[in-house]
């Protein structure tokens, strides 16, 4: 449980300590890539809770989503249409859905636990 959080902390500290910066024109690509990564992450957590998790789906989904989002943003810049909004919208909606499902699963687990405990007490 704590190991992935350690990975997150390691990534943040490495990024802050190395002081890597990207040119301002590529900033939108990075923000949309972060959004895509978060979407995949929560998708993975949901899949794990629903016991349908698969390594390959998770890892390929992570990189594919990032590439797709950045590609869409790139295409949008060149077509003069704000296509990255489509990615933001899609990922945003999915993020909310996934978090809602995770919440429901956790709630039902908690309820089950509570019910079991009260049964034991009786």
């Amino acid at each position, binding site marked *: 449980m704590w*190991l*992935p*959080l*350690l*990975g*997150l*902390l*390691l*990534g*943040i*500290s*490495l*990024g*802050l300590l190395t*002081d*890597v*910066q*990207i040119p*301002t024109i590529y*900033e939108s690509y*990075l*923000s949309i*890539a*972060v959004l895509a*990564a*978060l979407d*995949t*992450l929560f998708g*993975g957590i949901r899949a*794990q809770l629903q016991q349908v*998790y698969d*390594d390959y789906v*998770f*890892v390929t989904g*992570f990189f594919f989503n990032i590439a797709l989002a950045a590609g869409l943003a790139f295409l949008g810049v060149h077509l003069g249409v704000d296509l990255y909004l489509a990615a933001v919208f899609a990922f945003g909606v999915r993020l909310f859905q996934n978090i809602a499902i995770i919440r429901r699963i956790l709630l039902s687990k908690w309820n089950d636990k509570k019910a079991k405990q009260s049964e034991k007490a009786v």
Partner: protein
Amino acid sequence: MKRKMHTPFIIVLFIIGFMLAMQYNTVKNPQQRDTRDLWDIRRELSLEKQRHSELLANIQQLNSTISKYENMDNDSPDRILRETVQGLKQEAGLTAITSPGLVLRVDASPEAKVLGQAVPNISPDLLVKLVNDINRFKGNAVVIDRKRIVQTTAIRDINGQTTVNSLAVRTPPFMITIGTSTLADANKLASYLESSSIADDFYLDNLTLSIGKPQKKVTLNGFDQSFHNKFLSETTKGE
């Protein structure tokens, strides 16, 4: 089984963390806002342009020296080297020069004379301010009471005596001679000094500064002491 499942999560979270940190770095990057307005920027631009043209002039001068060296006859390297040394000496202020310029006269103020007050010595601060004003405005060479101002000149107070190059400046009246590149520059310098507040500063010290007419030829004597150089040393011959 569970440990195996952790690995992709660790990697993905690591990448997300790195991207977030990068995003943070990029967003907070311009910590100081650029608050210069158009005129500030224009002023800076003009300063840079001035420096650009000065550098270009320097390069041109050096190039001409190089081409002189390259084109010299077999028997004349001596002459050209001597010319270069002479030029450098002139630039350093070691030789006497004759150029367009003007003469300033520092005297005790009439009030001080009438009231019978002792004629005060000029203060080093006032003299420094005057030299700075002259240098700011195209004064090429300055001689204060027959003491030439060079790069290493110190204007300071020694035992209550104002000194230039460690030599005491006379009690007023005395002369300050300024050499400029052209007569036009001398004219400009004269009008600049007349319009500046430097005369008021002299008046506060019971002195007057009279600015002479720009002349086509003024003679400035050279620096007659020796330079003490702490940083350069002579190399031995044959190396």
